[in-house]
């Protein structure tokens, strides 16, 4: 559906996007994660035609639409991370204006705007001045605005930032609803766990480069793998254990604390069992062998700090 290929973007000397590539399938609800300044907004703005990349291309349904403004505009909806307001417009007038920007007027627009307000639970705020809406409501109104032309693809830049848990929950429900309608949705955030709750896939960007992309299950598994193996051995078997660990391909780093070895291990569960049995056959007395509980935060930190842990 969307193929982002080798994007480069420079701001002066600063390389904001460095060979960024990402494929997004139709119907995906993609969480686009990265720390502040990672390049999320830059990527989105390039995808919606608000910014010119210095290299690379974006294909939508196999076509490069960045030079075909109309086609791109029909295809994608964009909700930026700020809420631009016109003075003295009501929520309904606000939507009507953007409907007009897509050539929808009159009765058709009335029906559409009502539907959209209904969809984002703002029907009762129809005639409220947009400036008088709460942050969560504005966010939802923006979302409705992004949907005015019924786009196939929706780019939402940090839609959940600043929302309280209730508003976030509501947003999540709306997005799931939209996703079930077959829309492809890209949501950016700098909080992985927050996205993990609502997305089907996750892509992590760091310093303008994609470092991880996977389904939510894969991400959870990767998270589990991201924490070290804790192996407790008999006091005098530490050296022997080291020998075995050194010969294992998946072992990245071993730190000992007394007789407890903390092993950064990149293998899956089969590899883990293999390691255990290797140690046993080598005669290492093992008192304990387990993975520490992995968390999405720790995965995120590891991926962002440690370069690429590719998964697909």
């Amino acid at each position, binding site marked *: 559906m969307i193929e982002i290929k080798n994007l480069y973007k420079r701001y002066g000397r600063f390389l904001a996007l460095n060979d960024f590539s990402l494929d997004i399938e139709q119907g995906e609800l993609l969480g686009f994660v990265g720390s502040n300044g990672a390049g999320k907004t830059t990527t989105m703005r390039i995808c919606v*035609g608000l910014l*010119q990349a210095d290299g690379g291309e974006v294909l939508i349904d196999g076509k490069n639409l960045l030079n075909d403004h109309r086609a791109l505009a029909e295809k994608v909806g964009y909700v930026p991370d*700020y809420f631009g307001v016109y003075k*003295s*417009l009501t929520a309904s007038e606000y939507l009507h204006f953007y409907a007009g920007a*897509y050539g*929808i*007027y009159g009765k058709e627009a009335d029906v559409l705007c009502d539907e959209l307000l209904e969809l984002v639970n703002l029907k009762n705020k129809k005639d409220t001045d947009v400036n008088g809406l709460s942050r969560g409501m504005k966010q939802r109104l923006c979302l409705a605005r992004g949907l005015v032309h019924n786009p196939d693809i929706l780019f939402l830049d940090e839609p959940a930032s600043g929302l309280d848990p209730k508003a976030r929950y509501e947003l999540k429900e709306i997005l799931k609803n939209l996703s079930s309608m077959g829309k492809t949705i890209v949501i950016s955030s700098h909080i992985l766990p927050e996205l993990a709750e609502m997305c089907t896939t996750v892509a992590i960007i760091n310093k303008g480069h994609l470092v991880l992309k996977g389904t939510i299950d894969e991400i959870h598994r990767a998270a589990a793998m991201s924490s070290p193996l804790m192996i407790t051995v008999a006091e005098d078997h530490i050296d022997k254990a080291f020998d075995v660990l050194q010969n294992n391909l998946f072992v990245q780093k071993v730190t000992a604390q007394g007789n407890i070895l903390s092993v950064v291990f990149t293998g899956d569960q089969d590899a883990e069992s293999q390691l255990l049995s290797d140690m046993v056959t080598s005669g290492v007395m093992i008192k304990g062998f387990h993975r520490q509980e992995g968390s999405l935060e720790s995965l995120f930190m590891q991926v962002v700090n440690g370069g690429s842990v590719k998964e697909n």
Partner: protein
Amino acid sequence: MKKTKRNAVLFKEMTVDMKKPKILIIMLLINMLLIPVVLGFFLAIYIQGNSGELGYRILANYFIAMMFTEAGIIAFIVPAVTAGSVSLEKERQTLDVLLTTRLTTWEIIKGKYFSSYLTIVLLVLSTMPMMSLVFIYGGIGIWQMIYVFIVLYVYIAMIASFGVFFSALTKNTVASVVLTYIFTLSYLVFTAVLPWIVVGGIELVNLMIYEDHKYFNFITDQHLIPSDYFIMLGIGNPFYAIFDSIGHTIGYSIEGIGIQGVNSLGEILPHTSDKNIVFRMFTPISMVFQLVVTFILLKISAVFLNPVKAKKNKKRK
């Protein structure tokens, strides 16, 4: 999706933004500024009496004075109305979203431009009753008046494009307003003096030719460069067009002023070329020129606003 010809930006601004009282206040202001001129007009008639050629001339003079006052007021009002048109969208952060809609930058610029333009037209229309008081005493015919107003609206069209242009160019409205005022003023002054600088220069040359030849008795027109063509360089100046369009009925015209000016500058030989038709076309040519300037500035604004193409042009090699 239905595709209508209606311009969404224009539609919104005309329906929603017009509700604001701002425009009424400006309307009141512009009319108040015209009151002294109109009073002066009646005072002059009262003193001079509306009789004979003198009265007739005074009427025309006053009409010109009123039109100039109006045009001057417009030069101050138009930047205020137009210079924020696009930059305000940037400041409110609404431009990006607008750019991602189906609207092209050309449509956005057109919408912004015409909504500003129509606002100003409304303002100018509000002065029509006062302006038409001249009719009570005659002096200016209805068609004359309509013609002059067309010239005025063309002038408004052009300076409205200045504001839109700078607001598309700059990031904030203050900068845009300042630049628009400076540019509008410079433009008006420059186009006003340009023909005289050129004519003056030519006359200086003529003077030298004359000095060179006067001892030999054979100096004729052919030896001198006709300078009056260059009065046409004034086509960029809307005040000349307004003056020319009113003046024709009363024997003033840019041509007349031109010949007078040339003569007083050179004060040597009658060396004006007989290009009456060219001169008679002064106002229409000027209007076409102003509309072309308008179109070009708006087109540039649209190209500038386009994030994808604008960047391509700016791309460093």
